[in-house]
């Protein structure tokens, strides 16, 4: 099934116009890439794709870059379309990330990340735990004690069920010595609703991307409990969990994949393009403006990281009963 997106339609129209106007007689195709964001415009994957588009062209790494959006079902619709439509295409790229790993498992998607060609991990965001300013819970020890006393009494507010926030909650509960599968997680759609529930103290503890909470912590409306980052991570509103004796490392990463069925040389070419982009100053500037951390990881290291993440996520989702064994 090939659906013509608006952007494709526009591109097609432009191409027709160029040809109609006589076109340039050059036979060489411009070095171009097509980036699919398997989500609607506006979200994290879409923004990643568009920032890539901007940096790749402004730094003249490629001559042109197009972004298409295929939204739906945590990216599983996008990946299915990518695998069918872009097979063997050396110019096709797809944005993906942590959320897609879980969505593929939960939706029992027929096409998985094994069907695409890994290129690199680009960015990541550490997960933060926070409580309302007037909460009786003052520290990570208090939270752990409350979980251990009665895991069901501690309600967690965060994003969609089975997503990165839910997994963080279950893993922390396990670390605190409680039964992670019984975690009382209240899913919210969109950041706004969850923020309201956390600020008003309706949920015991909030979980989400660190940057979402930063200004509320600075504005003394939320108390910072900890971040799922390794020791010594800098530039944050508060300490990491690891620094407080809870070794939980989890990042909501975003990565880039190529189409299936491309040659080793084509894959190396794409990896080079992505590396040039990730090492450029323009990329660093954009990441700083968006509050994303550069967690670039390529090659074999990325592939083994990916395997570990899939194992870890599917383990937690099984424990939560969201994916049947």
């Amino acid at each position, binding site marked *: 099934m090939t659906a013509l997106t608006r952007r494709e339609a526009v591109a097609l129209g432009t191409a027709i116009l160029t040809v109609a106007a006589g076109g340039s007689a050059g036979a060489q195709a411009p070095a171009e890439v097509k980036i699919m964001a398997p989500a609607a415009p506006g979200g994290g994957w879409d923004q990643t794709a568009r920032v890539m588009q901007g940096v790749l062209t402004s730094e003249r790494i490629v001559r042109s870059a197009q972004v298409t959006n295929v939204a739906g079902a945590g990216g599983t619709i996008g990946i*299915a379309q990518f695998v069918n439509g872009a097979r063997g295409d050396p110019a096709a790229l797809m944005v993906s990330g942590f959320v897609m790993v879980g969505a593929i498992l939960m939706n029992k998607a027929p096409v998985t990340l094994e069907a695409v060609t890994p290129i690199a991990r680009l960015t990541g965001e550490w997960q933060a735990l926070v409580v309302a300013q007037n909460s009786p819970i003052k520290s990570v020890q208090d939270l752990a004690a409350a979980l251990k006393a009665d895991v069901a009494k501690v309600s967690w507010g965060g994003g969609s069920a089975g997503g990165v926030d839910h997994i963080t909650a279950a893993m922390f509960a396990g670390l605190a010595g409680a039964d992670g599968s019984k975690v009382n997680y209240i899913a919210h759609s969109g950041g706004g609703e969850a923020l309201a529930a956390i600020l008003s103290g309706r949920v015991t503890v909030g979980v989400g991307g660190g940057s979402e909470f930063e200004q509320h912590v600075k504005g003394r409306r939320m108390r910072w409990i900890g971040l799922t980052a390794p020791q010594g991570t800098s530039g944050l509103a508060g300490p990491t969990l690891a620094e407080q004796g809870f070794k939980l490392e989890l990042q909501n990463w975003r990565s880039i994949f190529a189409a299936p069925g491309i040659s080793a040389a084509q894959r190396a070419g794409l990896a080079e393009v992505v590396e040039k982009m990730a090492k450029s100053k323009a990329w660093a500037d954009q990441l700083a403006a968006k509050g994303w951390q550069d967690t670039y990881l390529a090659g074999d290291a990325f592939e083994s990281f990916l395997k570990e993440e899939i194992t870890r996520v599917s383990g937690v989702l099984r424990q939560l009963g969201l994916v049947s064994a």
Partner: protein
Amino acid sequence: METLGLLGGGLAIAVQPMNLLFALVGVVLGTAVGVLPGIGPAMTVALLLPITFKMDPAGSLIMFAGIYYGGMYGGSTTSILLNTPGESASIVTALEGNRMARAGRGGPALATAAIGSFVAGTIATALLTVFAPFLAEVAIAFGPEDYFALMLVALVTVSATFGSSRLRGLTSLSIGLALGLVGIDKLTGQARLAFGIPDLLDGLEVTTVAVAMFAVGEAMAVASQKGTAAQGHVEAIRGSLWMTKEDWKRSWKPWLRGTALGFPIGALPAGGAEVPTFLSYATEKKLSKHPEEFGHGAIEGVAGPEAANNASAAGTLVPLLTLGIPTSATAAIMLAGFQQYNLQPGPLLFVTSADVVWGLIASLFIANAMLIVLNLPLVGLWVRLLSIPRHWLYGGILVFAAVGVLAAKGSLVELTLVLVLGLLAFGMRRFDYPIAPVVVGMILGPMAETQLRRALQIAGGDPMVLVQSPISAGLIAVAVLALLGPLLWARLGWRMKSDED
């Protein structure tokens, strides 16, 4: 009076020629995308974000605000004229507005929508200026049990207002509730009624269902009545193109009541724009001196919901600007826009970037004024659409609806859905089942379900949570009264007097 001074400073920023131009571009773009079903202001702002990166922050935020307001307004034009709601918030407008348009009163319907939007937008923006910080505190205190009670009130009052028979109305409502179940359950992440079709996992799009039920179903009904021209007859213009004195008299109160419902509910983090339009419609029907006109083109049924719709758009900015909480798709993307310029919405925004905030608020006033200047002269042109011969008109509506749905999702499943649901709507029309409760159930059902389950989950399964909060207890009492009141009164032999003030 410090506020007024700050607003004055904001106005000075907003009337700079470049910013006026941005506001105009935003308003025109917003109206255009609001007209197309499926493409909403959220998507437009998202696509424009990368382009505006190098622009001045005030200018691009002003443009975004224009798009937002314009989109809310544009959706009503197609709702009224073509029975094809462009946005989910303008679905209610189609109910009475389209009836008016077919009776040759499209002009007054469009005018009351435009002026009502202007009045509501202006009042709501003024309220935003004065009450934003205070209101934001109240709004976040609204918990899931309170939302559930609010949805209950909406469901009970609204479903009572549709259709000739209660049973038929409830049947339609149940169809809507079932359609609302399709997709991944928000609280457990499990798929429901998706039948293994990946495209259904995200649930049905409200605009897709509304377009299918209203426009496609009707086009089929018209096509099936070939030769019997009397039914579904469309008259382009009858009487005055503008609002008569009577129209004004019947419109101004609904405008104000719509604003009073739209602004506070829009300011709630999970309030949305649809609920206040439903409540406004139900209120107007209850209070109208001409309740028999409802369902046949009552101007109050256009004036109230349109005002509520625009007031809620201003309400949405309350939690966004004061707390940094985005409560609608468009607001979420505007938040991304703020962050792009390293502006962090929240309590500090009014202190650290006062010029931008007040410039934005001032430009909302200007965007509103521009919308009315832009749209009122076009009313005469728009209603000409209806003088197109019927077979062309309905053929055109079908193409328009299909293109809109395809443009938004680009999926064949979506298009198939439009046709299947259109057939369903045709069948329901044929056997005299009302259509509107389907859409109402589909919007309110999932909201009510999610909030109820959330409330119970936080309370550890204790149903008493629903009556422990004073807001929720009060709202539930209102719902029970609205449900049982009429029955009780009837039994006791009381006659409900229409309120003669």
